[in-house]
């Protein structure tokens, strides 16, 4: 267990050495959300209508940024190869990397979402559900993005390819999350949507790390 | 035998649908055969050039 904590701490140490870079996805997300009132209309009624979808789509796009930091940098320096010589199993190393990646890129999105929801005139109860759905949804996004990063490790144009691979897999998450926000605006009960997102989270947490390990083995050990 | 749909108001949609399908189906089936034919051609060429070169030596 101490190895897991040490790995996560080292990853965070690396990330915070250049804290400025961490905020870049957040600036991007804030920018995308700020464009919608300019593009569509500043009226509260209309903005409320699209608020859930806009914040979620901006979050999905923001999660696609900076993905080369997940595996590609380590593969270039040769650190990823040393993972194979480590004492711990590949799964633990991948799990540590995923946790540190979520803390660095997923959690900030959840923390900034209330501000963005206010920009889009979202009522408070819908805002709470939005943040809750993001809290459950961002780990799934991090897992899917890490899988795409592992799959495109030896690809030529990895950045553009990753978004192409990940976007179709986001569809169920986007559907249930945005409908959760819309239903709360309409005053309905949204436990069903949030429970479904939690179910997707559990499915992702159990199935995706082994898939990432297989993908890394394909790229490192072939 | 009812073929009056051919000049009905839906004829355009049915014809385009079948034409597009045929085009995709033929393209998808023909591409590999043409590519393989070209590859076989240049393999034969390689083979013949090798035999000619061998004959010139001995």
């Amino acid at each position, binding site marked *: 267990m101490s*190895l897991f904590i*040490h790995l996560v701490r080292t990853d965070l140490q690396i990330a915070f050495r*250049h804290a400025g870079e961490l905020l870049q996805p957040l600036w991007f997300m804030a920018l995308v959300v700020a464009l919608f009132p300019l593009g569509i209309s500043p009226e509260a009624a209309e903005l409320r209508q699209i608020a859930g979808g806009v914040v979620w789509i901006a979050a999905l796009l923001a999660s696609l940024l900076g993905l080369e930091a997940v595996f590609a940098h380590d593969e270039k320096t040769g650190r990823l190869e*040393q993972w194979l010589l480590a004492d711990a199993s590949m799964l633990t190393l991948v799990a540590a990397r995923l946790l540190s990646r979520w803390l660095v890129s997923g959690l900030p999105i959840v923390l900034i979402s209330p501000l963005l929801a206010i920009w889009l005139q979202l009522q408070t109860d819908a805002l709470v559900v939005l943040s809750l759905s993001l809290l459950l949804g961002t780990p799934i996004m991090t897992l899917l993005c890490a899988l795409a990063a592992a799959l495109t490790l030896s690809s030529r144009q990895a950045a553009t390819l990753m978004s192409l691979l990940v976007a179709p897999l986001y569809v169920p998450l986007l559907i249930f999350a945005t409908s959760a926000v819309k239903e709360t605006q309409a005053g309905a009960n949204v436990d069903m949507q949030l429970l479904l997102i939690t179910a997707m989270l559990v499915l992702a947490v159990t199935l995706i790390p082994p898939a990432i390990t297989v993908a890394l083995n394909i790229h490192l050990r072939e | 035998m009812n073929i009056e749909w051919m000049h009905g108001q839906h004829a355009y949609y049915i014809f385009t649908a079948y034409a597009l399908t045929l085009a995709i189906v033929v393209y998808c089936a023909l591409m590999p055969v043409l590519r393989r034919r070209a590859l076989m051609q240049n393999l034969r060429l390689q083979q013949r050039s090798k035999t000619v070169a061998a004959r010139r030596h001995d």
Partner: protein
Amino acid sequence: MPAAYLNASNISYERHYESVFGALTLTLQAQDMLVLSGANGSGKTTLLKILAGILRPTSGHIKLSACHYVGHQHAQQPQLTVLENLLYYLRLQGASLNRCAAEAICLQALADFKVAELATRMAGNLSAGQLKRSALARLLLCARPIWLLDEPFVNLDKHSINLMLKLMRRHCAQGGIAIIASHELGLADLPDSRHLRLPLRNQPSD
């Protein structure tokens, strides 16, 4: 140091469906030192990576005790200091010590390589030679019987090469195995080492 053994039976490797080297059998025991030589592309690095367990051979199997592998890449995170990089690898290779004991081992390893003064420098702004020496310091972190070194002498100055040779001899004397892929290594430098020359294969495997 646990007992050192390495036996690989008819391992071969194919890349782009062309075999890089044919069926190769290799058995080494304690105190053996093997120098791999051969033209570029003859598969020296591939063989080392297969022995290290990084690459999976197309056929054949390998049994060996724990190994260190130092390749061309320096495997260090540019945003971390040299000491932090070594701490990372010390933990990765299974040592669960408190912080100051771990740092003592890392500093000792760096001292052995005469790079102790680089400990707090960022790996990002080191020269190639310094990076190579701090990467080689990884070998001394925890006692693993087999050393697999790919071109260990590249970017090293005269003094460091002698230091490296001394450390290798000491490692083998203590019952370890060292396999070095290198061009510059003449026979004189390591008199008691075995030699393996990898032929350059260009005929495709059937």
